[in-house]
Each structure stands twice: as structure tokens, then as C-alpha cells.
């Protein structure tokens, strides 16, 4: 083929132009930017090089090439060549639309790692000081596999973190779980928390200390009603209702209702119980009153009965919850006291805790604040006495949870051994090195009659706890296998599960680890695995496009929308085959977009796209000039940005609102900073679920806010530390919002002073105007500066201002390159509205690039086009764009490495290998 002939007949027109203006740099043995145009134009067909051509035509369209200081083609020639390439590209891409492209194995980003572990364990780990730092690639995101690395230092950190997470495992009598505090302390605190929550929920704990407030006694009045209804169920038309049904309807434990009913139906209740029973028997018959009056009457009667019960209880149980003691104190016989308190205990308390208010076992001195009792609370802390609750209130499931919690509490430290030592010390009984495990019958037999039953009870408690721990062990191994399947985001094959079990056995028998240590090591091993750290997508076939399996799709969905692993529902959908169809995938995506976890999409996707990522730690503002920034402004500004995009996503707003929303989210600090009137703020509606006290202010245009360009965080990151930077802001709009970046400035472009009030009195605007007199500067600056100047009334930390610091007035009008006049913020929004297509295209490209973890390819044009059309036709609700992406072949398929090995790419490789671009420093002598 001759040098003047294009390999593509349609591109013949391009050859002379390239020859004249481009080949000098872009051909020969060392072409600049590794682009040999003569090769591309004359030797290769266009469809082999779609992405290269796409880039070439972009450079031509943007006027970036040939460079400023080189000879330029005539505009008409350039346009003709651009048109020819565009049309050839369109033809060629039509056949390749939907190509999934090459997505390189992705490691979890630092953020994904943290979110994933949160969702696995429920713990808010702060790994920010420990995780390796991410780099950005592709369309500018951290989730691009081809720009991620791993080295031994990072892997060591992952192993370290895996150990840290494993230390939070609760390894006790129950199934494996995680808790915010690590180790044995974690087990203890978690057990206390679980016990408390059961007590709190049910009231009625049969011990309570001095000054304890009765708690939950109102349950009696409810239960008296239930018992009455049960007795008259037929007359009330409730013949089919069981006592349990009636109890449930009243919000009472069925077991408690049964207890009270049995007491109320006792044949010969002892005094003073008989008084209560008698009063209850006098509740009216259903027939005696009208329906409406009846309900009220029964309500009143049961409350009155409670009113009768309480003083009796109080009298009998005065100053103590111990029936024996109460009997002495009240001069009633202990039988009387016991008869009532066993049936209708008064206990339960305002502070449902194992606490130092609690009495201690009766073999010890129970007077409050005595040395013995204090020592008990210091050493042993807890004493269980909840017989009534267990026997008469809790259902079976809750009972078993409570048993596990107490076993965990006992097992979290040497509770029973301490108890034993305590009693031995008190009574001067030599214990030797005996502990609960080694207690001999003769030792117990030698105890006093008072102590023996107590010690025997403790021993059986202890043994039952040990048995419960031992029984739980095999389950923990299986729990880790299950944990691995969730962590690795797929089903384990039997061999993998087998290897985990084998490691456990080896750690126990070979390495002599105890059970908790072995389980923790096993968990750490799961979390250090490449199956956890990488998002593995299997592709056995090098060259073909393969459909991802359901679990891989589930992970793509969850990491796209939640930056984390699939939840239970998504795993179920994968298992049930619902992710085999594009519709099924889109359906799941819509569900997921309603989950609060999509806030992470606001943080990760929008944050990285628009540059407010980690703004809560932003340090680019001069702390001396703006001391309030880091102190009070930074954090609400970050919250404002995240809340805004969370609203766009979860509220499924039309994407137009990203730029043109007429509302703003502020708290009182921001409102003041933005100059929003207090009254406006008070009238605004609070943001649902906002912990930061944010409100939504409508008609934001009136206060110069609304949309992306009014966000404090955005205006701040696009400023210099001491002043605004119209250049930066303009560059940011072109690059991030419109997707039309200008090339980097020449190295010696010079700079303007850091401060807006400089010695020579020239304003930033004047300086830039001087700068633009140089035509080579003007080409980019005439695009950037006018956009930036339109935002000039927003100060360097995003506040609204009417003048510069030195009192000079602000001119925020400017003229765009096409001659359009732009007046300030509102004018800029109008101008951007004119360029909606660019904004939409950029949004779609960014979202797709983020979803796929790669750069946009020419073959994505079809999908991008569909997404843009979706916005044009249906307003572009966020979920509709997401649905388009997740249903696309790009999202559902994967291309093997061989599939994109087009001649160009091989050519590039061989060039590099041949040292065309210089030695790669990998040489080893």
C-alpha cells in the first residue's frame, strides 16, 4: 500500500492533511505520544483502531492538535476531515455497539473495603489511617482495575486489618457475630447489652436494688383485661381466639398472660392474693353494658385493680425485693409476702441492667454499701436473678437468647471461679488451687448447709455454660464458611469449604490454638483472601465475550450502587435466577436505589466526579485568612453536597436538577454563611433522616443557590487558598460538567498572584485580560475565564459577596467565546442550559465509566446515546439512567483478554518492548 492511500477508502481525504500537519511528530521510529499516524492512517482499517480514531478526532475537534506553535490546516479542511472521520466512526461502531470492553480485575477501593466490612459485620470501622491510598484512573474514579496496585506492604496491611476485624468476632455460646468492641471485653459488653435489651423489652426482672423505680408494672392492668376477655371470649364474639392471640393483641407476652390467668383462676388463693382475685372477679359481665361503655369500664376497672395491687406490693416489698426480708420489715408473715410477690412480683426497674444496684447472692451481706457487697460488685459485677421473667414471661426463642447471653457473660471472664473464691475467702474455707472445673465432691460436702446448695447451683450453672460453649464450636466453623461465602460474594465450592474446615482443625490440633483464636485466624484468612480483596470475575475463555454469572452481576450491581457487597435480597435474586434477564437486573437496581446505602453513590460517584470527595478533610483553604473554614464550615459544606446528591439519587430526581435545582440543603451554620434569612430557614422543611439538622430551602435562586454550582464545597475546591480562581472554576466547568477539557497550560504560562489584593492594584480580571492578549493563551482562556468569572460573586469559601476585600466592586459579567453575554450565576445557568446535551453526555459517560470501572469506548456511543435520549424524552430520572446501564450488554457481559487484541494493541506492545519509547528500566544485567 502506498503512503498516500488510506487503508480505509472513506478516509482518503484525511491522508494529505495528516501528512502535511501531523506526520512530522507522529510517525517514524519514535512518534510522539506513542501515536504513529502514518501507521494508523495508511496501514490499518479504522475498525481495528476505533478508540485511537476517537481520540484523534477529539483532538481535532477541540483544536488541540496540531499544537499552537505549529502550522495549522485551514478550518474548512479540518472540518471536512473531522466530518469524514466521524461518519466513518459512526458506521464502524454500529457493528460493535455494546462491546463490553476490557474490564481489568478490580481490587476493592479503600472506601469499598470499609463499606463492605461494615455491611459484613455491622461495625463502623475507621480504617482511614490504615488503608492503602487509591489512585484515580479511567473516567477519573478509584474503582478502575487497570490503575490499581498491590504490593507486599499493602498486603501486610490487609492482613493486619483482617486480624483487627477478626478480633471483633463474638465467639461464645451463640452463633458467630460481630461487636463494636473486640475480644473478651467485647463478649462481655455485648452480653450485657443483649441481656439489658431483653429486660428492657419485657420489664419484670426479679431483682432490683434500692432506689430502683418500678418499671413495666402497667403490664398488669393490660393482663387483667386480657384475662377478662379470655374468660368472656364467647360472649365477646371471640370464641376462636386463644389466650395467646388475645395477649398478642394487647401487646402482652402470652406466657405472662397464661401465668396471670392461672393465678386469677386459682381455686383457693392465699391472702392477700385472694383480694386481687376477688376484685377481678367483680369485673362486669359483657352482657351488662353496651359495647362502648364496656371497653371503658374494663379499662377503668383494670387500672383500679392495679392501683389496689401496687400499695400492697410496695408495703410488702418495702426497702427490699427479698420476700423474706420484706416479711420481717412489714411484720407480715413471710408466707403472706411470698404468696403475693411470687405471683405478682413488684420488681423490674428503671435501670434494667446488671448493675451495682442489684442485690448479690443471699449467702453474702446484702446491705447496701457494705464492704462485702461493694467487693462483690467490683469483682463479679453481675448476679443473675430473673426466675420470674424466664418462667412466666419470655417466649421460648427469647429464653434461649437470654440463656446464651448469660452464658456469654459468664464465659467472658472467670466469673464462677471468682465467685467460688469469694465465698471461700468469706468463710475461711481453704480452696487451694481448686476452680469450678476441678471442684471435688468432698469439698462441696464439707460446706455448711447454707452454702452447699448455692455452690452446687453455681457449679451446675458453670457446667451448663461450658457445655453451651462446647456445643457452639462446630457451628462457629460453619458460620465462618457462611461468612466466607458472603465475603467472597459467591457460593463456595465444596472443596473451598473443606479447606477452611481443614485449616480450623489444623489450627486446633497442629497449632494448639484454642477455639476462639482458631476461629479468629480463620476469619482473618477469609478476609486476606484474593477472593475478598479482588472483585473476581471468572473468564475461562481468553477471546470470547461471556455472560457474567448471577453472583458476578449481583456484585457489579452492589458495588456500583452501594460500593459494597450484595445484601440478602440481592443474593436471593441471584440464586433464584432473577438476574438472568436485563429486566430482572433493572428491577433489582430500582429496589437498591431506594436503600439508604445509595448515599455511598453520592459520596463516591458524585464526590469523585465533581471533586468534593473527602472534602471533610480538605486543607486547600488558607487557615489564617479563613479560620472559620476548617472550624465550622467544612463539615456542613460536605454534608450539603452529599445530601444534595443523595436526594437526586434516592429521590429519583430528574438529572436536570443536578445543575438547575431550585432548592438547597443547609443547616444553620451554612445558612448564615450563605446569607439565608433566619425566617426562611425556620420555614424550611427538615431533611428526612438528616442527623446534621439540615433543612431544604426552596426557591433557592432568590438566595443565589441551587444545584451543583452553588454548592459550597464545589466553589471552595475550585478556588485558590486565598482568593477565587476564575481560571480554575472555568476549567472545572469545562472538564467536569461539560466534558470538554482544555489542554494543560504550557509549562511557562506564568502565574497570577496568590492574593486578590496585590501590591500593584491590578485585579485578577485585569491580569487575565492581559494574559489573553497573547493569542496562544487566549484560545483556552477565552473558553475558561468567562465561565469562571460568572461565579465571581461566590467567595473563595463559597459565600456570597458584593465586593472584594478591599472594597472594589465585583464584575461577574462576561462574554463567552461564541459571543454570548453571561451575567453572573443566573446567566451562567442559562448558558449551560443551552449546552444541556454536553452536560447530559458527560453525566452518562461518567456514570457508565464509574459503573464499569473503565474508560468510555467508542463502542459505548450507542448506549450513551440511548441514555441521553432517555433524558430528553422522559426527563431522565436517575433510576432510569441506572436501569439503562445495568441492563446493557456492557454491564452484563465480559470480554476476555484475547478479545481486544487488535493489531494496533499488539503493535503498541512490540513498540514498547523494542524500546521505542525508551528503556523501561526493567533491564537486569
Amino acid at each position, binding site marked *: 500500500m502506498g503512503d498516500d492511500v488510506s487503508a480505509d477508502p472513506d478516509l482518503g481525504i484525511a491522508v494529505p492533511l495528516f501528512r502535511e500537519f501531523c506526520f512530522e511528530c507522529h510517525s517514524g521510529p519514535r512518534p510522539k*505520544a506513542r501515536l504513529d499516524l502514518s501507521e494508523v492512517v495508511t496501514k490499518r482499517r479504522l475498525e481495528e483502531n476505533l478508540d485511537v480514531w476517537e481520540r484523534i478526532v477529539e483532538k481535532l475537534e477541540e483544536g488541540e492538535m496540531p499544537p499552537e506553535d505549529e502550522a495549522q490546516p485551514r478550518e474548512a479542511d479540518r472540518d471536512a476531515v473531522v466530518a469524514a472521520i466521524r461518519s466513518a466512526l459512526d458506521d464502524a461502531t454500529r457493528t460493535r455497539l455494546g462491546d463490553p470492553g476490557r474490564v*481489568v*480485575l478490580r481490587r476493592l477501593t479503600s472506601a469499598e473495603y470499609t463499606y463492605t466490612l461494615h455491611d459484613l459485620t455491622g461495625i463502623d470501622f475507621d480504617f482511614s*489511617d490504615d488503608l492503602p*491510598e*487509591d*489512585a*484515580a*484512573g*479511567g473516567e*477519573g474514579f*478509584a474503582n478502575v*482495575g*487497570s*490503575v*490499581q*496496585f*498491590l*504490593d507486599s*506492604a*499493602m498486603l501486610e496491611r490487609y492482613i493486619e486489618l*483482617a486480624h483487627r476485624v477478626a478480633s471483633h468476632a463474638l465467639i461464645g455460646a451463640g452463633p458467630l457475630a460481630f461487636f463494636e468492641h473486640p475480644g473478651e471485653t467485647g463478649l462481655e459488653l455485648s452480653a450485657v447489652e443483649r441481656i439489658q435489651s431483653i429486660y428492657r423489652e419485657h420489664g419484670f426482672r426479679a431483682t432490683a436494688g434500692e432506689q430502683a423505680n418500678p418499671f413495666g408494672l402497667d403490664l398488669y392492668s393490660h393482663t387483667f383485661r386480657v384475662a377478662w376477655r379470655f374468660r368472656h371470649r364467647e360472649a365477646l364474639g371471640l370464641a376462636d381466639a386463644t389466650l395467646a392471640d388475645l395477649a398478642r393483641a394487647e401487646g402482652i407476652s402470652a406466657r405472662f398472660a397464661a401465668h396471670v390467668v392461672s393465678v386469677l383462676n386459682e381455686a383457693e388463693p392465699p391472702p392477700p392474693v385472694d383480694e386481687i382475685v376477688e376484685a377481678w372477679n367483680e369485673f362486669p359481665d359483657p352482657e351488662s353494658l353496651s359495647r362502648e361503655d364496656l371497653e371503658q369500664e374494663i379499662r377503668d376497672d383494670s387500672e383500679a385493680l392495679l392501683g389496689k395491687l401496687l400499695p400492697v406490693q410496695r408495703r410488702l416489698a418495702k426497702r427490699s425485693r427479698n420476700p423474706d426480708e420484706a416479711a420481717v420489715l412489714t411484720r407480715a408473715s413471710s408466707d403472706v409476702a411470698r404468696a403475693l410477690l411470687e405471683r405478682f412480683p413488684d420488681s423490674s426497674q428503671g435501670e434494667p441492667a446488671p448493675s451495682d444496684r442489684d442485690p448479690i447472692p443471699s449467702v453474702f451481706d446484702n446491705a447496701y454499701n457494705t464492704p462485702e457487697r461493694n467487693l462483690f460488685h467490683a469483682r463479679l459485677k453481675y448476679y443473675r436473678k430473673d426466675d420470674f421473667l424466664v418462667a412466666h414471661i419470655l417466649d421460648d426463642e427469647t429464653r434461649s437468647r437470654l440463656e446464651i447471653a448469660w452464658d456469654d457473660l459468664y464465659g467472658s471472664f472467670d466469673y464462677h471461679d471468682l465467685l467460688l473464691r469469694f465465698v471461700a475467702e468469706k468463710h475461711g474455707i481453704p480452696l487451694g488451687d481448686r476452680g469450678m472445673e476441678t471442684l471435688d465432691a468432698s469439698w462441696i460436702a464439707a460446706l455448711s448447709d447454707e452454702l452447699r446448695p448455692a455452690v452446687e447451683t453455681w457449679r451446675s450453672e458453670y457446667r451448663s455454660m461450658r457445655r453451651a460453649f462446647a456445643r457452639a464450636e462446630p457451628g462457629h466453623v460453619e458460620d465462618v464458611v457462611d461468612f466466607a461465602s458472603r465475603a467472597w460474594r459467591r457460593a463456595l465450592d465444596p472443596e473451598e469449604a473443606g479447606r477452611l474446615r481443614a*485449616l480450623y482443625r489444623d489450627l486446633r490440633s497442629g*497449632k494448639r490454638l484454642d477455639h476462639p483464636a482458631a476461629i479468629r*485466624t480463620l476469619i*482473618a*484468612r477469609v478476609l486476606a*483472601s*484474593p*477472593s475478598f480483596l*479482588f472483585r*473476581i*470475575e*471468572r*473468564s475461562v475463555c*481468553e477471546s470470547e465475550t461471556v455472560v457474567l454469572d448471577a453472583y458476578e452481576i449481583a456484585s457489579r450491581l452492589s458495588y456500583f450502587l452501594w460500593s459494597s457487597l450484595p445484601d440478602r435480597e440481592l443474593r436471593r435474586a441471584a440464586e433464584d435466577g432473577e438476574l438472568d434477564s436485563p429486566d430482572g437486573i433493572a428491577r433489582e437496581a430500582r429496589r437498591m436505589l431506594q436503600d439508604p446505602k445509595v448515599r455511598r453513590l453520592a459520596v463516591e460517584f458524585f464526590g469523585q466526579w465533581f471533586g468534593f*470527595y*473527602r472534602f471533610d478533610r480538605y486543607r*486547600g483553604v488558607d487557615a*489564617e485568612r479563613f479560620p472559620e473554614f476548617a472550624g465550622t464550615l467544612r463539615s456542613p459544606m460536605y454534608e450539603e453536597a452529599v445530601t444534595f446528591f443523595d436526594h437526586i439519587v434516592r429521590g429519583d430526581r430528574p438529572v436536570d436538577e443536578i445543575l438547575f435545582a431550585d432548592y438547597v440543603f443547609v443547616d444553620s451554620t451554612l445558612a448564615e454563611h450563605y446569607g439565608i434569612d433566619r425566617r426562611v430557614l425556620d420555614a424550611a422543611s427538615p431533611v428526612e433522616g438528616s442527623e446534621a439538622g439540615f433543612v431544604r430551602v426552596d426557591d433557592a435562586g432568590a438566595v443565589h443557590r441551587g444545584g451543583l454550582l452553588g454548592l459550597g464545597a464545589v466553589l471552595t475546591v475550585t478556588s485558590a487558598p*486565598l482568593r477565587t480562581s476564575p481560571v480554575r472554576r472555568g476549567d472545572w466547568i469545562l472538564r467536569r460538567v461539560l466534558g470538554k*477539557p482544555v489542554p*494543560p497550560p504550557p*509549562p*511557562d504560562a*506564568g*502565574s497570577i*498572584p*496568590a492574593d486578590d489584593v*496585590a*501590591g500593584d492594584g491590578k485585579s485578577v480580571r485585569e*491580569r487575565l485580560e492581559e494574559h489573553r492578549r497573547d493569542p496562544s493563551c487566549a484560545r483556552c482562556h477565552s473558553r475558561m475565564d468567562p465561565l469562571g468569572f460568572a461565579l465571581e460573586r461566590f467567595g473563595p469559601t463559597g459565600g456570597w459577596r458584593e465586593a472584594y476585600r478591599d472594597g472594589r466592586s465585583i464584575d461577574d459579567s462576561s462574554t463567552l467565546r461564541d459571543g454570548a453575554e453571561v451575567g453572573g450565576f443566573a446567566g451562567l445557568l442559562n448558558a449551560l442550559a443551552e449546552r444541556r446535551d454536553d452536560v447530559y453526555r458527560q453525566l452518562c459517560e461518567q456514570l457508565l465509566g464509574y459503573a464499569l470501572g473503565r*474508560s468510555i469506548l467508542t463502542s459505548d456511543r450507542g448506549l450513551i446515546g440511548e441514555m441521553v435520549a432517555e433524558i430528553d424524552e422522559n426527563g431522565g430520572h436517575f433510576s432510569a439512567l441506572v436501569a439503562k446501564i445495568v441492563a446493557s450488554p456492557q454491564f452484563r457481559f465480559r470480554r476476555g*483478554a484475547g478479545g481486544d487484541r487488535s493489531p494496533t494493541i499488539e503493535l503498541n506492545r512490540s513498540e514498547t518492548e523494542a524500546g521505542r519509547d*525508551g*528503556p*523501561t*528500566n526493567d*533491564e537486569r*544485567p
Partner: protein
Amino acid sequence: MSTRGRRSDSSRVSRRSFLCGAGVALSLPWLPSLPARATDSGKLVAAPDPVEPPRRFACVFFSNGVEPEHWWARGGGGEMELGRALEPLLPFRNDIVFLRGLFNERAAAHKSPHLGRMANLLSGAWVSTEQDEIRVGRTMDQVLADRIGRETRLPSLVLGIEPTELRLEDGLSMIYGSAISWASATKPATKEIYPARAYDLIVGSGKERALDRSILDGVLDDARRLRGTIDGADREKLDEYLESIRHIEERIDRATRDGRLEGSRRAPVEPDMPRPAASLPQDVSEHMRLMLDLVVLAFQMDRTRVATLMLNNDLSQMNFGFLDGVKGSLHLDLTHNGHDPAREAMYLKTNQFHFSQFAHLVDRLRSIDEGGRSILDSSILLGCSNLLDGDKHEADEMPMVLAGRGGGTLETGRVLDYRDRGDENRRACSLYLSIFERMGISLPRFGDATRPLEGI
């Protein structure tokens, strides 16, 4: 055979001397009479004498260049005159070599004025402009780490002050502005910015890692199995994982062998500085000082012989308000100062501050005796930036100063000017080849250079 004889000798004395060393540590002089472990000197040119203290290399980097007017040196030895940027080095005139005119051709030719001219400082390689890849070149410190790093617990120490920013600048990943050490063309060496973590790397015993073995075995197995189910570039990524496991295992092995390795040379085995606080220091100069002291500690304990420290990232927003009379951040306010004289003066102060950090390292290493010679005598230290005039992004020349005598291989107290010797004779990579030679490594070429620097 003599090598083998010595090795067994050393292993015989090692345990005892290791025990002696424990707890006594720092004031002990280097004991050259003890036999040293032989290096694998077969392939090496000018191998350091095995009984000599080992040679070390460190690079202290600062971003954004210097105020060019004050970047000069004249004369030699104690008479040397220094430009104001170099003022902190005045007490060390006899210990330094001032270099003018060195450059990296591919940096100077790069269109990205920052990132295209920084990541390649120590490699001379091209910074890729492809969006979907990160690629520069393996850097000279990592070549050194590969060759001489095997003798110590840590192949190299890669330190920094500022974290990596997660964004693109001019379409290039900010990773290019955050790493001067690259383990391979596509992978930056992990930079440690936490003093406490660096301390643990240097001082930690490694014994606590015993359990990790079973974890490593397990995950290695995972990786091998997965490898069969994926292809191409995915496999390369997984290979990084496999390689990392191998490195950790090597390190564990090395840590458990330390008794023998260190014993022969009687490096201190106890650190003479406390473990720094776990959090990042809020005070920049304290942070830098700690990192420099950690380099000293690592050299002193012979835990590594190669170190790099980035005092700031490219495009740094580091605020220098803590310097008297200085206001604003390094890149935007001070470097690009619009030739405002007040700002230029502040920029100069940051230059001086950076060289005072370098001077601190020189000073500390000079004060530690290793048997009649200081660590500085055995070291080559490079203080540098990637741009000369930071305001103009001038990469046609880089500010570079060497310190230390490289075990007697480098004559100091000199000023070397390469500006008018032609591009072939002023390549930074030639300097790196010269440094390799002095560290006992012979390479035919590196980066864009095929021969060492003349006259050094």
C-alpha cells in the same frame, strides 16, 4: 571457599554478639574486627569491602522547585559560597557536591507541566498519558533495593508526608504526583506517611507474624486456584498478589534470621527513639523531622540501606504559615507567586526550610560513628526537586545536591556544572548509574543514560 568459611564463622559468633548488642546499643562503636557476612560479590563491580560498614543511599525530595535566582554555588571545600536557597548547608560545605544542569529528557519533553515531570524524577522514564493505565518506570532506589536490599530486613524505606490525592490532574492520575519511588513501571512503592508505622517496620521483631504463615498458605492457595479461572491482565493483577505473598514470606524469613545477620556487624538492636504517636503529626516540621530521624534509625540499626522521603507531593497544598513571615500554600500561593517580591521571598524561605531538613539528615548521619567513620561517610544522600524554577515548571534542569562520601568513593566539597556539556553529558540517569557503581552495582544503562556521569 573462603566465603563459606567466613559465613560459618559469623554464624558461630552471631548469637553471642547479638545478645551482647541487645540493650547496650547505641554508644557502641562499630567493631570492624568481627567478621562480616560476605556479600554475593561475584557479579559486582567495586564491591564494598565486606568489613567496611555498608553503603547507604537516601533521597530527600521536595516538590515545586526553587527560586532560581538563589540557586547557585561557587568555589570548593570550606571556601564554597552558596546561594541563599542553600543556606542551611553552609556548615556542611565539605560534605556536599553541588550539581548544576542535570535533567531528564522525557520529563522536559512532557506536556503535563507537573505530573509528567515528577514521577520520573528517579527513573527518567516517560509518564504515560493513557487514562487506563499507570506507567512510568522503575526508579533507581528500587533498583538498589532489589540488589542490596536483600541483605537487610527492609529492602527499602519509602516515606512521605502527604497522602495521595484521589483525582486526575490534566487527565493524569495524581498518583504520579505522590510517588517518587516506583517498584515497577506500573506500580509505585507503597509510601508510608505515618511515623508510627514506619517505626514498626524498622523496629518490629517480626516474631508476631508466626501465625500469619497459616493465613499466607491459605490465601496463596486461593490465589493459585483463582489464577486458573481468569485471564490476561486480570492474571497480571493477581500475580501482584502472589508476588506480595512471596515478599512477605521472604521478609518473615529474614526477620527470623536477623540474629545472625545483624550479629556479625553489631548494629544496635534497640532503637534510640521512642515509638511516635499513632496519629499523623499535625505540625509539618515535626512530621518531617520524625521521618528523617526514622531514616537515621533505619540506617543506624542497619534495617535498610535505601530510603526515599518526599517532603511534599507535587501540587502540594502544604501550608507554610508555620514559617516566620510566610503565608499560604506551597504550590498555588508561593511557587506561583506572580513575581510579587514579598511572595518570592516567602518561596525562598520554603526552599531554605526544605534544605534545612536535608541538612538535618546530613548532620545526624555525620554524628554517628561506625568504627572511625560516620554513617554519612558511608552514604550517598541526594537532596533534590524535579523542577528548577517551580513557577515556570522548568524541567530542563533539576536542582540537585549530593552529600556523603559513599564509603570513600565520592569526593565532596565540590561544585559541578554540566550546563554547557551537551544533553548526552548531563543526564540525571547518568548520575544514577554513577551512584549504582558506588553502591557496588554495575548496569549498562538506566533510563535515558548509557554511561555514568563524567567527572563525579
